[in-house]
């Protein structure tokens, strides 16, 4: 199996099976018991704060906070950590690593370890002129801050999705004044991703089943393009029929009150607890940001 196929197959199955399964959203943990719209706003506060915070220690504090939430929401740590770390933070780590060296930095920092001294100024394309290669204190500190900030952000996002059912999450967007049409399209898109992913996955299976020899990279590119073309056509047809089905049921182009079921039930879910959590979060974020601003 070629690399393309393997990644495609794995990613599509991942979308189909883990993202859509909602195992952890069904558990009876702390975050799951909150009103999704209020939780959504609280998490937005947290995410914005993490992006605003400067100091490494405070970011660590956020990390601790998110891990506490993981614990009380009954999500297994091992599953959680693999899900959080495996993609973005590791990639960010690789990206950030060179930045601990002076030659890739914008500002001059205090040298921590000098690796090599040329004794003369080196000019290298794209880089500032340098005469030593050294690891700098600031470089290490900011690289760590960078990687940790990214990790905490991802960790919070993952926590939010794992503990919220998707329809509720998307409907929550209306609480930050997202237009109804947009939310309606979001819902439909979400719905058809699964269907089309199944279709693509079967197309790939059928292709795999008929690949009886080595395939060159160019050929596989062209083939993927064909599959995308076929996917496009089929989806286009489907969208025309969906439109007719909607029309037939009275759709007049105005998307209003699209998802009342989800929304109304959301209003009833665990309100007092949710507001307390929101207030606590806002106080937590505000204190930290104020403190930083004053420092």
């Amino acid at each position, binding site marked *: 199996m070629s*690399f*393309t196929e393997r*990644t*495609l197959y794995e990613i599509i199955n991942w*979308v189909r099976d883990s*993202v859509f399964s909602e195992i952890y959203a069904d558990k009876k943990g702390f975050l799951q018991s909150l009103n999704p719209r209020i939780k959504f706003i609280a998490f937005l506060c947290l*995410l*914005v704060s*993490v*992006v*605003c915070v*400067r100091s490494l220690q405070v970011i660590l504090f956020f990390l601790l906070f998110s891990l506490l939430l993981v614990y009380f929401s009954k999500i297994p740590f091992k599953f959680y950590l693999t899900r959080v770390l495996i*993609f*973005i933070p590791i990639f*960010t780590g690789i990206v950030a690593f060179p*930045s601990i060296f002076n030659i890739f*930095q914008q*500002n001059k920092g205090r040298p921590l370890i000098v690796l090599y001294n040329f004794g003369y100024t080196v000019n290298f394309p*794209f*880089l*500032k002129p340098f005469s030593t290669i050294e690891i700098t204190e600031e470089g290490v500190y*900011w690289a760590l*801050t*960078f990687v940790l*900030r990214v990790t*905490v*952000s*991802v960790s919070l*996002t993952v926590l*939010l999705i794992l503990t919220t059912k998707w329809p509720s999450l998307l409907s929550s*967007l209306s609480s930050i004044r997202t237009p109804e*049409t*947009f939310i*309606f*399209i*979001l819902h*439909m*898109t*979400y719905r*058809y991703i699964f269907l*089309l*992913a199944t279709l693509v996955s079967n197309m790939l299976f059928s292709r795999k089943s008929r690949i009886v020899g080595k395939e060159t990279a160019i050929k596989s*590119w*062209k083939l*993927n*393009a*064909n599959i*995308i*073309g076929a*996917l*496009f*056509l089929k*989806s*286009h047809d489907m*969208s025309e029929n*969906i*439109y007719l089905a909607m029309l037939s049921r009275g*759709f*007049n*182009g105005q998307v209003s009150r699209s998802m009342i079921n989800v929304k109304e039930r959301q209003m009833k879910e665990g309100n007092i607890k949710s507001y307390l959590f929101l207030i606590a979060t806002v106080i937590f974020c505000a204190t930290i940001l104020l403190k930083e601003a004053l420092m």
Partner: protein
Amino acid sequence: MHIPDGYLGPLTCAVMFLVMVPIWYFALKNTSKRLGPKEVPMIAVLSAVSFLVMMFNWPVPDGTTAHMVGGTLFAIILGPWASVIGITVALVIQAFFFGDGGVTALGANCFNMAFVIPFVGYFIYKALKERIGKVASAGVAAYIAINIAAVVAAIEFGVQPYIAPGYCPYGLNLSIPAMAFAHLTTAGPVAAVVTAVVVGYLERSRPDLLALKETSPNIRGE
């Protein structure tokens, strides 16, 4: 090209959101006024396609992978304004699915991929298609659009070291060449080949999809 949370400082994030707000507003207004109810499900389904297309990671010679956005293709079929909505939807879902393309960086990501790509792609395609044919112009448009978007993204995170440390650590001197190199050599050709082949595929099987805009340019919006 998806910028995760934590790469961009608060100022950049805020600015990009502010830039996107009027774009989203016009796109929605344009969509509901000019496109009519029929395009609602069409945008939804094509967003789903775009979401899946972004997950087609292609192997490239240096061992990394690249993906396309499908923005040019989307714009060729539905027009650039509808693409703004469609790709934004795909990006919102991706931001939550993967934390890929962060929530706070959504404004920036949407600007690069849901605004720059479809508009650049659409107008290049429109300018070239009479001269060099639909298939070739679709490929060229996709190639240029994705590269311009990549450079825009590179500028966004390349300015971080000048504004605030602790975010993306590399300055413009490094970010622009790195992003440009990756997209000129990998993601660009992939986007070009795929867009061209798909347009060729549609030209043979459903030419009406590509012709729609020509017969009624004002319904599709510009």
